């Protein structure tokens, strides 16, 4: 007797369709992008975009200076200086912990370093 056919599953068909579409597009794009023409075009676009970005940044910088406002670069600079101060504070607090005998940084603190691999333990039991 023939096996009873299971009813079609639209969700499974949809999953298969998406999977095939993904595979097809990725393969097609992979072939298209693996060429000299694409490489040349992509790098031209990147160079143009970064040059424009830089020129736009300089223009906006001049505009902000006119308005007496800080530029993004100046804000980043302040952020970096704050981060440097935070790092210094962290270093000082770590040193203080060490001086006061804090457990966190005591060499070798923590559980004993005596663990053996399971294979060695099994051998030990066998002998």
């Amino acid at each position: 007797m023939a096996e009873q056919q299971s009813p079609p599953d639209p969700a499974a068909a949809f999953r298969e369709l998406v999977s095939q579409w993904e595979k097809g597009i990725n393969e097609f794009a992979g072939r298209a992008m693996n060429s000299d023409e694409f490489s040349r075009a992509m790098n031209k676009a990147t160079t143009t975009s970064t040059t424009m970005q830089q020129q736009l940044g300089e223009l906006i910088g001049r505009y902000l200076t006119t308005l007496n406002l800080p530029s993004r670069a100046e804000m980043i600079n302040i952020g970096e200086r704050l981060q440097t101060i935070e790092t210094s504070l962290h270093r000082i607090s770590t040193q203080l912990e060490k001086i006061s005998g804090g457990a966190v940084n005591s060499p070798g603190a923590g559980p004993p370093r005596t663990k053996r691999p399971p294979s060695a333990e099994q051998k030990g039991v066998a002998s």
Partner: protein
Amino acid sequence: MTAASATATKPAAADPMGGRIQAAIERAIQRNIKGLEYIASSAPVMGATPKDLIHSRGTLNLYHYRPLAEEIYRVPLLLVMATTNKGYIFDLAPGQSLVEYLLQRGYDVYVMDWNAPRADEKHLSLETYVLDFIPDCVSRVQAESGEEDVTLVGYCMGGVLSVMYAALNADGPIKNLACFTTPIDYEHMTMFKRWSDRNYFEVDRLVDTLGNIPGELIFTSFEMLRPATRIAGQVQLWENIWNDDYVKSYRMFDRWSTDTLPLAGEYFRQTTKELMWENSLFTGKLTLNGKRVEMGNIKVPVFHAVAQHDHIVPYDAAKPLIASVGTDDKKEIVLKGGHVSVVAGPNAVKRLWPALDQWLGERSV
């Protein structure tokens, strides 16, 4: 799986077609409810395994995870994260965290993680990472643990940096070297090599203009390797949005992959010229501060886990590591999965982690 998702998947035994229609309707309702929840909810918490920041210097953070076992192996592990992404891929969530797994298996775990390099760090170079950051962290791990030996575990570019360090420090203190999906032969990084063709790619102009290379540019280049995968992933998310576990996992990986870091300009220039153009790590011509990086100098035990379907580091690019190192105690395992799923996620839990534990355990006493 939640009660809602369990209900949604329960078929009606008496009438398979009726049950399927009922499940489809319930899933459609759940999709709408969960879809709204998805938009409104905050991002999942990752990297939550308890740890202490023991050193921070600009782009570099060194964390020490608090032990979870009563007895630990003698040799501490220092994980070196890839420079393009954040280290929480090693510590996604309880039950899906490589770090948590290693801690529970009795290892003392340290992680070198990266912040976005600041504008004033554009001069960081391969030498800075290999001859300054790694040795600095190794000596801090030695001081913190009280142990002379340290095992290095590197992921992707973290593996490349670890290989370079191990090759230049053949006399120690590295006890073992474990790498995941580490590119060695850049001739086989086909797409990246094509895109960075020296005839068209003006790396000097790019670095001199931008300083550091923006994370968006790095992210886009990764995405371009499989341009349809993100859209297909979002369609699959919509289809599975009734399933809380699926949504949580999707969000974690999506957040991590989009959290791409900028690269220090000089480091990017060097990796492009030295690795991508000259392939000098593979050919043995790479020199850092006048010292030649020869993989044959690596005499410590080496473990390399590579992914069968890795679209970022193809197998042929990763394969030469084991062939090039100068030790007989070496092991390569080829695992099902891709560049990320080999390290994190359900596949990694079943495949890589136990294999790594078994290999490291015997060499960590």
